[in-house]
């Protein structure tokens, strides 16, 4: 079991969600599809449904706290868009109010509202994206295009926290011998800081040389590198990928036919949905709730079907 470097006590691992076990390509497809839907289906019923589902997806991932913070942070932005759009945009047939030559139309207010909603959904999607599509998985996605660059990025990413830790150690040690960066005049502090940076660079250079030795000892640059794929692409991944592609493909096709898109300009259209509209809404809902469906199935397998031991 791994130990925490600071405390020397075991680190507990959280349980894995089903979606975390899927291949990064499936994850990427899902997020692209959701963001696409949020930008294409400009309709209050669609966006409202997606908003609720996206909150649900984040709650399943236990990032409720972050959702709250994002919603809190976006209140101002939503208000801004809703106020600004009617002010600068006076297209539309239904005028609510005029003052000083500015027309406030129902269309512009509605458009602002929908834009804001769509933006919030995209933000929520990114919370989930950051949680599941970690930098390692992202790197895996792009290692196909440039293995060398990927290795470099990976080493750099790993290096940054080490660098910071080393710098803290050096600041502490130097202060013990009388070189302070937090005391004295500006000139004195700048001189100390430059000294410390020099110490850090020298130390890092020393270590980098050792790493380089260890790398060449293990045959780095002795042959054209291959790339070990740590995320396998299983049959299950293939099934889900096809499912997501099919579903999102059909959604985008319907959208291109104008279904699920509220006609706003020049004159606000009918809010109500046709039968086809409801069907597309269902499709979008199923698409967006993908992580919840996976989790629900997992829950059902263990609790309802009594496969548990």
């Amino acid at each position, binding site marked *: 079991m*791994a130990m925490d470097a600071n405390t*020397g006590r075991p680190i507990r691992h959280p349980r894995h969600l089903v979606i975390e076990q899927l291949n990064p390509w499936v994850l990427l497809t899902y997020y692209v599809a959701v963001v696409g839907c949020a930008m294409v289906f400009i309709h209050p019923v669609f966006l409202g449904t997606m908003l609720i589902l996206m909150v649900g997806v984040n709650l399943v991932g236990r990032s409720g706290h972050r959702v709250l913070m994002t919603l809190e942070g976006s209140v101002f932005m939503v208000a801004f868009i809703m106020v600004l759009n009617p002010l600068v945009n006076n297209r539309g047939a239904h005028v609510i109010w005029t003052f000083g030559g500015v027309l406030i139309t129902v269309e512009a207010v509605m458009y602002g509202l929908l834009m804001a909603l769509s933006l919030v959904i995209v933000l929520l999607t990114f919370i989930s994206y950051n949680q599941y599509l970690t930098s390692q998985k992202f790197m895996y996605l792009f290692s196909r295009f440039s293995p060398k660059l990927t290795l470099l990025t990976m080493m750099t990413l790993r290096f940054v926290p080490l660098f910071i830790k080393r710098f803290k150690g050096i600041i502490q040690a130097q202060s013990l011998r*009388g070189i302070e960066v937090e005391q004295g005049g500006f000139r004195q502090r700048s001189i100390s800081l430059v000294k410390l940076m020099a110490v850090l660079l020298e*130390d890092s250079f020393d270590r980098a040389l050792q790493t380089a030795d260890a790398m060449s000892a293990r045959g780095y640059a002795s042959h054209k590198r291959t790339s070990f794929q740590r995320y396998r692409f299983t049959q299950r991944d293939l099934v889900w990928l096809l499912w997501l592609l099919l579903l999102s493909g059909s959604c985008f096709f319907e959208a291109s036919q104008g279904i699920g898109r509220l006609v706003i300009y020049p004159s606000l259209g009918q809010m109500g949905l046709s039968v086809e509209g409801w069907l597309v809404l269902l499709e979008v809902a199923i698409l967006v709730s993908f992580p919840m469906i996976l989790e629900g199935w997992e829950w059902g397998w263990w609790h309802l079907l009594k496969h548990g031991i």
Partner: protein
Amino acid sequence: MVALVETRHLNFEYALSDHKSLSDVTLSVEAGAFIVIAGPSGSGKTTLLRQLKPELQPVGKRTGEILFNGHPINELGTVVSAQSIGMVFQSPDDQLVMDNVIQELAFSLENVGMSSGDIQRRIAELASFLGLQDLLYEDVTNLSGGQKQLVNLASVLILRPKLLLLDEPTAQLDPIATKSFMSLLQRIHEELGITIVMTEHVLDDVLPLADQLWFIRAGEITDTNTVSDTLGHLWQQPDARLFVPDVPYVFLNNQLTQTSGLPLTVVAGRRELREGKAKFKRPVIATAKEPVRRNWAVNLTHVAFEYDRNGNYVLDDLNLKVPENDWLAIIGKNGTGKTTLLKVMMGLLTPRRGTAKLLGKRVNSWHQQSLYQQVSFLSQTPSDYFSYDTVMAEFVARAEQLGLTDPKQAAQEMLTRLDLVSLANQNPHDASGGEQQLIALGILLLSAPSVLLLDEPTKGLDPVRRQRLGKILKRLQQERGVTIVMVSHDMAFSARFADHCTLLFDGQIVSQAEPHQFFAENFFYTTATNRLMRDLVPNLITREEVAVVE
């Protein structure tokens, strides 16, 4: 027997150097051998090891021959060389390249152009052999030092080397991690038949596994014999004697009879002692009279510390008093919070509860720089303390900063006192680990502190430098009245030099006693000498104390 590696009249001189780092080295390593190379730091151990790995040969002038399997080693192809000769270095951290263990293992194989399927198979096989399954997806930064070194070894083994070179692989590890690393090496050697050549200067754990012990001194190989022959020869030379581990030391020092060769382990030693029937003197334990009222240099009361909110208490209601002019050794396994304790003492970390007093004054009511002049803290990375280009400049700068009347004079005195005169004009970063320790100590000592806090001062030091450091510190304590609080897992060093020892466990100080009493009461956590002798004389703790009754 077939020699796997041979060198003939090998000479090597570093570029820009004025002396030979290796001179006329002729040796041969048989396939399947386990060879330990010992010698003082800077004697050319690492240089020699690097000659045997073409990718790592240092730049300089080389004459003579190096053969691998009968062919010149530099004619091996890069891929062949990478695969058939593996090398593990000292620092557990700096060898890691990737972010998690499985990628680290794959890295070696990716380098030699293996396909994903083959990589998968090799990882599966090796992980099962080494028992790495549970660590495979672990982030490398979460591993302990011992685990990191295990991963470093694994990522070399995965290339299936014929020859494994190890450069002081356990110098940075604690005793428990060292032992498990050694038993792994034994398995690799015995079960896989891999030839091992290893440099090391703490020989207690490794000699029972080795076939041969070689000794190198100033670039010359002086011994290439079996372990007991080399030890016997080292014993003849006063300056190499310190390298002999505790158990054989006791036997050689007292000229005890050996029925079946020089014993290397505690169990073999005890068997010999039972058969030899020698009688031993009881140690004279100097118990200083405790003055009625003493001043406390360090006084911690009810100290608790956690690293984060709702975290685990690393220190938990800890009480510790250290009288002035005492030398206290705090012993304990890695990760028990020893370093944390020192940092709390020094005010570098703020305790969650409780108070820390230094020299009778609360740590947080001291003016910071005057505290740092009175109390010095030496961390495990002495190089963090350096900021100038030469050792002399370091000392002079600190002396000037302290406003000493004659900085040059003070620096010169410090160089003499710590025996560093020969390094005066060198860059402190180029000095060896042991010397860096002394240089950092010198910087701190310029302010004439009355308390010295040391974090693992003997880590990575060879026996000669270890003893020198001990003597310097002892002199400071006796002549200048310095109080020393040291955190260490070096039990032999603590037994020999400290006045009191204590054990830190589960956030608390478990016992605090005079070393003889402390180690005699311990059963597992004690010196090798004590484990060897405890049936005969229970409170013998250092090898120098063992003496036969005439």
